[in-house]
């Protein structure tokens, strides 16, 4: 006997995508908290918190790509391209933020 559509919907919410969504929401709320702390912190603190904010942003990008865009199940070269993009993104953005 087939499950009702609503049952299927809830089972899907409980699956990995639902958990990832909760993690992304928590990270989204954590980001501004760090930003506010950054305004209050000294120069070194601002730099550290800036890197933390950018790191959280790249982690969120990776979650969206791997779990929402389904790249976790993509062919290895395609997944590696995306992982490389995330790594380059993090290195370039933090380097520009810290040293420019």
């Amino acid at each position: 006997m087939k499950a009702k559509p609503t049952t299927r919907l809830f089972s899907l919410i409980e699956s990995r995508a639902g958990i990832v969504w909760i993690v992304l929401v928590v990270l989204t709320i954590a980001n501004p908290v760090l930003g506010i702390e950054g305004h209050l912190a000294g120069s070194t603190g601002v730099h550290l918190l800036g890197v933390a904010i950018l790191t959280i942003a790249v982690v969120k990008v990776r979650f969206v790509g791997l779990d929402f865009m389904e790249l976790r199940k993509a062919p290895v070269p395609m997944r590696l391209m995306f992982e490389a993009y995330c790594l380059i993104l993090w290195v370039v953005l933090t380097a520009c933020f810290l040293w420019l």
Partner: protein
Amino acid sequence: MGMTTVSQPVAEGRQIPGESGVWVFFFGDMVIFLIFFVAYLVHRAGAPELFAQSSQELGLAMGVANTLVLLSSSLLVVLGLGAVRREGRSVAVGAFRGAMACGVLFVVLKAFEYTHIASGTTGLDLNAFFSWYFVLTGVHLVHVLIGLGVLGLMVSRARQSGDGAEKRMMVIESGACFWHLVDLLWMLIFPLLYLVA
């Protein structure tokens, strides 16, 4: 005949989501935005105090709200895609329509924010920071508007039945990935403009 996933099998257990050709555009778009972000940070380095002061004029709550709205729309698209694969057309249509509603809400919030800034209630001239703000959010907003059209197409395909199920699934999977790309880009624009400026 029920719909099934038609992601292109490449290796056992691994599939390209949607049409492989659209990924050239997706990766290209992501690289272009990375170049935008670097140019933005270079300009910021030239006037850090101006950027910091101007950034604080943006409503943080509005940025967070925009992010949560897009994240929710992405979850609805995931749910809709899963429902299509499980032959639950009505659930899929509802989920995609919900994602569209979130997209419209994002546009409304952005319009409100644009009006607020343009009306000068921030008390600041449209300086270099706000120029970048309008460029980055404007190009992203174009993506959102295109994405709304794509979601509309996904609704229409999800409602159809009969022949051409594979082609319909390909359109729906590709469209879902485009909407997630819109979400992904905002995950970077939000902290760069609202938090680390």
